């Protein structure tokens, strides 16, 4: 079994038990094993979050800000319960949004593997979820995390984040000029890949 095949079967695999073939591949492939381990960690985290009364306001705030930027919700109305009500209305299922977002980014990074490069050229970037996809955390929140855990790295992350965002803007604007430009689409994926990597490094306990 190849990495690409396993990653295509990921949703089914995560829902049940890995087959013998999948288990064999996971034993021999640290990349896929790491990916599955990440997904399991997210699922485990989600179970823990389910037990909480309400999710952290930070998560809802990030989602709300992003949705507002996308024009999907109106500017704040005098209804202070907006964010909590989102959670209440959806109950624990509301967690599927950030979880799905996190899954998107994990899978997004993994499918960037070269064997699938050409296949990915046919996939549109997830325009609505693209920024929510970083674990519900925006750039400022990421920099706050870096400041808290590795203050000496903050300036480095800030500068790199700025550059990566510019990369994303340029790639998206090139794609907007010609939506059929496969290379531009690939550039968008590569730019997002850089940002995902930056977030992953900033949040990895061993890589402050």
């Amino acid at each position: 079994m190849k990495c690409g095949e396993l990653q295509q079967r990921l949703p089914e695999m995560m829902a049940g038990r890995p087959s013998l073939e999948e288990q064999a591949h996971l034993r021999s492939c640290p990349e896929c094993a790491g990916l599955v381990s990440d997904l399991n960690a997210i699922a485990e985290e989600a179970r823990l979050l389910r037990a909480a009364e309400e999710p952290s306001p930070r998560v809802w705030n990030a989602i709300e800000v992003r949705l507002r930027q996308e024009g999907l919700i109106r500017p704040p109305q005098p209804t202070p319960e907006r964010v909590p009500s989102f959670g209440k209305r959806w109950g624990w299922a509301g967690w599927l949004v950030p979880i799905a977002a996190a899954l998107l980014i994990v899978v997004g990074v993994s499918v960037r593997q070269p064997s699938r490069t050409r296949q990915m050229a046919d996939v549109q970037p997830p325009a609505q979820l693209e920024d929510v996809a970083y674990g519900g955390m925006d750039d400022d929140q990421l920099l706050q995390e870096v400041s808290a855990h590795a203050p000496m790295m903050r300036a480095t992350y800030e500068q790199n984040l700025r550059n990566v965002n510019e990369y994303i803007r340029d790639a998206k604007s090139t794609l907007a000029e010609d939506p059929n430009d496969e290379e531009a689409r690939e550039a968008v994926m590569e730019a997002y890949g850089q940002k995902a990597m930056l977030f992953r490094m900033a949040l990895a306990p061993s890589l402050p």
Partner: protein
Amino acid sequence: MGTGADCAPDKRVGLESWEREMGSRKHTAELVAIAVIVAGTLVAQSRKEYRFNVGPKAGVSVVNTYGGISVKPSSGNTVVVNATLYSNKVEVDSNQIGNRVDIHSHLLEGADQNSGRVDYEVLVPADASITLHSSTGPLRAEKLHGDVTMEGTAAPVVADDISNAHVHVRTLNGPVTVSNVENGHVEIDSVSGDVTLRSVTGPFVLVNSTSGKILYNGDFGNSGEYRLTSHSGDIDAVIPDGTSADVSARSVRGQVQDDIPLQPKSHTSFVIKKGSAFAGTVGKAASSVVLRTFSGKIHLKKR
């Protein structure tokens, strides 16, 4: 009673003598301070060795927040880990499960970049797959033919003499140097670290950077797909005589320069605008080479 003018030479001599003495004392104090620091460091430093017997194609993972990791081939089926710990605020956790060895620097309360530092020298069977993580590095792997994955933020990364394997490197701003890779499946991502490839060939070689420079020096092998992309970093490709490649280069806002007489192509996927793109073949066009940047410069030149 002497005048002030009469006294001045004596005072000057006295002052100079006092300054000399104080200078000497200060120098002595500095030496003592340095000696204390060095002695303290030596006392705090400790070395530990770990050995593991493994089978073919073992997996070895080293996660080290602060400090370097160097991996070389061992002679037998043994993994040997030599760790130099720089204080007692860090421990080494080691674990072997089947054919997999995990080494982890465990930071204790109050550990920082200096006191939490551990330097590892690791010997592994040449066919082992290795995964190395360090924030500061340096990370180095050489003379192996198992898969190599290295990840670090500011860590300089070096991979040398790797064959028939995957080489995956990710850094934030650490520079990456990969050389003498044969039949490699190479993927390098660095946000702002410069990436240098020397004599790196294989079915797939991919480099992606935001602002780091990319230098490829080699012949692009005899088949394979090479894709070097950046946002603002310059891309230089230096090729020798006898190179066989189908090259396309494009800079959206930067310049491209081609010193090689390429055979023009009848069809390209983009419009060739002089000065910002070129495409053509050299030799038998065995490998596909794609060079892309938004605002960097691209330069294809002869070695």
